[in-house]
């Protein structure tokens, strides 16, 4: 019943969601993810350039979703965090493939490509980024 996505909606966003593409303002130097349409600092005087983010960062805050919205029931409980990317901007994403005891504020994480959800049995399968815990040398924890 509730509209969540359509093919063109997904298509418009796939590069950004698959490859962590955002942008940067060449005037003020700030990085943005997701891409800004207008630089919020410089507005019309800003010059925005496409940037592929490294996907490395650290956990800024996190929660465990136990009461999921429609379409996500089968995944619950799952961890959603705000990640502060090394380039500056913060993004929201799941933390997967990690020990729950490793998930804490300040923990280093790295991006991974994963399925996000399915639009029912005959709908689109949506993919995008999630994150997993890494150590200080950017190596995966075993």
């Amino acid at each position: 019943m509730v509209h969540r996505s359509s093919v063109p909606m997904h298509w418009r966003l796939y590069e950004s969601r698959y490859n962590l593409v955002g942008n940067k303002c060449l005037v003020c130097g700030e990085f943005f993810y997701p891409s800004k349409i207008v630089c919020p600092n410089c507005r019309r005087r800003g010059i925005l350039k496409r940037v592929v983010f490294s996907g490395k960062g650290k956990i800024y805050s996190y929660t465990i979703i136990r009461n999921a919205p429609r379409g996500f029931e089968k995944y619950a409980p799952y961890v959603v965090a705000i990640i502060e990317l090394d380039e500056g901007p913060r993004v929201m994403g799941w933390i997967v493939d990690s020990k729950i005891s490793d998930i804490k504020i300040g923990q280093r994480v790295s991006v991974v490509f994963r399925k996000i959800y399915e639009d029912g049995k005959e709908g689109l399968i949506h993919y995008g980024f999630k994150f997993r815990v890494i150590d200080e040398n950017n190596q995966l924890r075993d």
Partner: protein
Amino acid sequence: MRNVAVVGIGETAFGEHWEKSLRALAVEAGIAAIRDANIEGADIEAMYIGNMSAGKFIGQEHLAALAVDQAGLVGIPSSRLEAACASGSLAFRQACLAVASGEYDIVIAAGAEKMTDLQTEDVTTTLMGAGDQEWEGWLGMTFPGLYALMARRHMYEYNTTREQMALFSVNGHKNAALNPKAQFPFEITVEDVLNSPLVADPLRLLDCSPVSDGAAAVIIASEDVAKRFENPIWLIGSGQATDNLALHDRKSLTSLRATKIAAKRAYEQAGIAPEKIDVAEVHDCFSINGLVALEDLGFCERGKSGKFVEDGNIERGAAVSINTSGGLKAKGHPVGATGISQIIEIVKQLRGECGKRQVPAEFGLTHNVGGTGATVVVNIFGKELKER
């Protein structure tokens, strides 16, 4: 701009009204407000109605026309305002600005929401429309989840405890037990909160406002007209502000910038400091947001809200009586109606009509938040009209 006052109030009980439709709830509240003001429907020159998502909750848009139609007021201009959970306050502000401008002398501002026709998963999805659909909603985020991120960060930065957050819900329920309009008119304990099921860690069920049906309405009049009424309550300060829509775009997760901007404007207009506020209805959609509001509204220092609550400062008759209605947690949170309902509680407190939950009050404040703080409205009310 002219001064304006609230001269009539009316609301439905908040709760799971399976027997009542959105239109029935809205008309019930409107008639109660008209009766309270002791005016005729024909005296009303315009209507403003706040509603978040009737389109998704019941498949009905064009609420403004529906409301005047069902109320028997066809012909007058009617507008629907939407800013998620702050929709009611937007309707109130637009109504006040229209009267202050000189266009009208008497208008009605209402808020209504019918949420319980949907299943919980669909309510959760619909409410997430108040966030950023492309970057928060799409990955299965929920509103309890967003506020949980704020709570976790507040605990991390200021050592705020789980018990301190729980106390905010306990206070709301204590007051709701004395409010016949409340959805949950009974007391709870800190243990009840800490033993309730986790919804989004660290938030538990009893940290969260419920899914509710309800409607509320107020009659607003210009200064000259309001003075003919028995007990006008004056709007002496009002501010509205915005912030980034997505939580991850905010500089801070432990403070709502829009609250600070709106409050500054409202306090300046009213010419009073936070210490002068006797009673306030703050937006505790989740217990953490109640704590954050205490800081952003200037009732306590940054990071000290947990201790402030723990020391009993928000109880009835203490430093500032918070959520004497029960708040969103215990009175209920039919999202579009909440802003107007908060105003009704403050008007009743200033009139001295709150019965067992009455507190001594000269000045009252309402704080209504849309989404995770992307829209905030702060209003200050007084018993006397301040000379400007």
